[in-house]
């Protein structure tokens, strides 16, 4: 009985589309907006942490996740699907590290995640992931921002938005984006972009911001290595977010 339902849900329509992927993208476009901006020496990703009720303990939710030392991501769409991808991405980064004893470059990790998402568009009995991801990271070739879609396509962006308000947000970014912005300015711009479509009140507990940047390399003896930079990804603390929000008030 079970093998009667092992055909793939992503079968081509006569017009050459994969309808399940289209529907997955629709699920993404119902999700909360996320933005990503490339600065001179880093990437900012930001999103709104919307709780369904004031009774929710929002310290337990985190939409921005660290994947490895130098890579983080944010999603728009179905939270549980994003969680699965975060776990797979983290595992993939560690597997790379186990072979090469170094962090994976951003594009290598992005390709892995995209490949996982593509698998679910060409297998039996599964559905595509209902999320788009913005993956931000810093490696030897600089800061990178990638978007990965349910189809498994990935795009490199200088600035972008995904989710509900993506069209307005991208229009806003087209006007406000400048090449080689400083990180502080990029955070400021990201917050202003989110503000347009923000559904609740903008406070330090409803705005999540992650930054992929570079720091001085410290060797195994705790000494700073001159001229060597290493990529790091970190989420801003609520106090830091509060300071940025104060600037736009």
């Amino acid at each position, binding site marked *: 009985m079970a093998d009667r339902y092992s055909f793939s849900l992503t079968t081509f329509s006569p017009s050459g589309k994969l309808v399940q992927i289209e529907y997955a993208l629709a699920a993404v476009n119902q999700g909360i907006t996320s933005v990503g901006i490339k600065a001179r020496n880093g990437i900012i990703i930001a999103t709104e942490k919307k709780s369904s009720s004031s009774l929710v303990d929002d310290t337990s939710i985190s939409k921005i996740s660290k994947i490895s030392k130098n890579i983080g991501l944010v999603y728009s769409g179905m939270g549980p699907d994003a969680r699965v991808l975060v776990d797979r991405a983290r595992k993939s980064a560690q597997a790379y590290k186990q*072979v*090469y*004893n*170094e962090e994976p470059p951003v594009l*290598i990790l992005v*390709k892995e995640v995209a490949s996982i998402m593509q698998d679910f568009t060409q297998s039996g009995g599964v559905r595509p992931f209902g999320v788009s991801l913005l993956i931000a990271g810093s490696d*030897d070739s600089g800061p990178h921002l990638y978007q990965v879609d349910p189809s498994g396509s990935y795009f490199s962006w200088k600035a972008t938005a995904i989710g509900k308000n993506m069209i307005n947000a991208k229009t806003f970014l087209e006007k406000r984006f400048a090449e080689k912005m400083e990180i502080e300015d990029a955070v400021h711009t990201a917050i202003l972009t989110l503000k347009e479509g923000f559904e609740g009140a903008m406070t330090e507990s409803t705005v999540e911001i992650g930054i992929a940047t570079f720091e001085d390399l410290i060797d195994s003896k705790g000494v700073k290595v001159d001229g060597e930079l290493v990529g790091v990804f970190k989420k801003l603390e609520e106090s830091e977010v509060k300071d940025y929000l104060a600037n736009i008030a």
Partner: protein
Amino acid sequence: MRGKDCVAIATDRRFGVQALGLSTEFQKIFAVNDKIYYGLAGLGTDVQTLSEKFTFKTNMYKLNEDREIGVRTFAHLVSSTLYEKRFGPYYAEPVIVGLDKHNAPFICSMDLIGCINFAEDFVVTGTASEQLYGMCEALWEPNLEADDLFETISQAMMSATNRDALSGWGANVVVITKDKIITRTLKGRAD
């Protein structure tokens, strides 16, 4: 052996099955790229298969990552590859030498299941490893220039392999600096 802004690697040229010598010019030094060379000592078939495997892996690395592999990264790749066969290992023990991305010299060796020995001075593997330890300890000194390093490693190699029945028939020596790579073949006792 590690020198001043240079590294050198040497292998003998004998391939045999116990007392029977089969080749007197067996290739045991392999290049990954301009900055990384490695040598493999041990079972002949594993030497060849591993070198093919590493060519595969480093070619894939170059295509996927769009960059050359670094010497430390390559060392860890070799270590992982050997450890994968922990309970049915390749009978080969590698020596890896090279210049890292800052052109600083790097050398290491490994046992057959991938335990890396990061050395500051010299590394040795093979049937004449004990003789080589003695020769290197006696002859090596820090900060040798490329030409002196060549002399040192060659003397160590010849004397050590002459004292081992299963090693010899000359040596292949490669000296790597940031500007050039010099490969030489030494003529030794043909027995």
